[in-house]
């Protein structure tokens, strides 16, 4: 049983991220888009996928990656998420500068833009804090509160942004991925809060 479970979890994770991307790759809209615009779009989808991977890693839910090892991978995938966002925004900027400037200045007519831009700033903020937290002498508790608050913004921003965009992604596979991103984030945050509360009270971290 145990040997079959791990590959199944990894396969499910790969499917839930890759199926929406495969659907998008088959979108007829791509025919009328330039390479940079396409790259920007797929970078956005990869960013959405990484938003699902991040909490799974930090919680140690992925087989073969217990929390202490998942944490290290989490740093790298966090860097990849940052890069994906930069490619997404940069590619869209080059494709249509006025539309991107509207979005970044929160003056865009498209309702999804402020959600995406807010998530972008939150991702930048987490990356910056992660890089500077030692130098700033940030206490673990402060760091945790800051990171989790920003993570809430990221998860909400990224998923609402993705759902409102009418683009190359297919609706059902996109909705499934977004629902999972939200579900996993809630589960992991609830676990972290529960564990912290339990340990600070001196109880056993085990439930019940």
């Amino acid at each position, binding site marked *: 049983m145990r040997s079959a479970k791990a590959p199944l979890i990894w396969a499910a994770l790969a499917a839930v991220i890759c199926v929406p991307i495969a659907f998008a790759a088959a979108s007829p809209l791509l025919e009328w888009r330039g390479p940079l615009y396409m790259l920007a779009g797929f970078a956005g989808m990869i960013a959405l996928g990484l938003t699902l991977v991040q909490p799974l890693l930090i919680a140690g839910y992925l087989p073969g990656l217990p929390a202490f090892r998942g944490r290290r991978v989490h740093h790298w995938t966090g860097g990849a998420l940052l890069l994906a966002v930069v490619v997404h925004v940069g590619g869209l900027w080059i494709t249509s500068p006025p539309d991107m400037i509207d979005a970044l200045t929160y003056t865009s*007519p*498209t*309702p999804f*833009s402020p959600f995406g831009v807010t998530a972008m700033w939150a991702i930048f903020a987490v990356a910056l804090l992660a890089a500077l937290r030692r130098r700033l002498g940030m206490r673990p508790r402060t760091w945790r509160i800051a990171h989790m608050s920003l993570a809430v913004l990221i998860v909400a921003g990224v998923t609402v942004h993705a759902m409102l965009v009418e683009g190359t992604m297919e609706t059902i596979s996109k909705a499934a991925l977004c629902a999972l991103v939200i579900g996993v984030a809630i589960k992991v945050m609830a676990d972290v809060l529960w564990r912290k509360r339990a340990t600070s009270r001196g109880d056993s971290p085990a439930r019940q």
Partner: protein
Amino acid sequence: MNTVALSRRSLIAAGGSVLAAGVLATGVSGLLLPARAQGLAPTESMSGGSNNYRKGAPIVERIGKGGFWMSGTVRRAGDGAPLAGQRIQIWAHTPEGQEHEPQSHGATLTDKDGKFRLEMPQIIPIFGQPHGHLAYDSGEFKTVFLRPIMRSAKEKSLEAHFVLQPA
């Protein structure tokens, strides 16, 4: 009485989007309340309306190969009188070109009833929304840029209405 069908998108947008207000304002003042024409308010430019605008697009029979209709009206603020012979410029992202490309742009003139109608290629979603762009930018009246959104990317036509005030 004034049943404005709100799509999921525009409902969500209503919270923060200036656009929703713009669309509703245009729709309500331009279409649904002709009885109030006496005080007809001028149309405000929509946010993002002027993006990828190319001044002086030529007047054309149709843009590219056609297959999609952009139509609307141009009226005067205050009394709502139709404005004939007004030049309206239209552009959008279509299978024949991106928004900024010259072949995606064209202009037409309003008829004696202040109506305009120009055939163009199918509008396809760009930057997350299937939308078109229209401009009145001829100087006699104050410049107005519109950015109407299609309810569905499958639609074959789109409308936009101008109420202009003297420059």
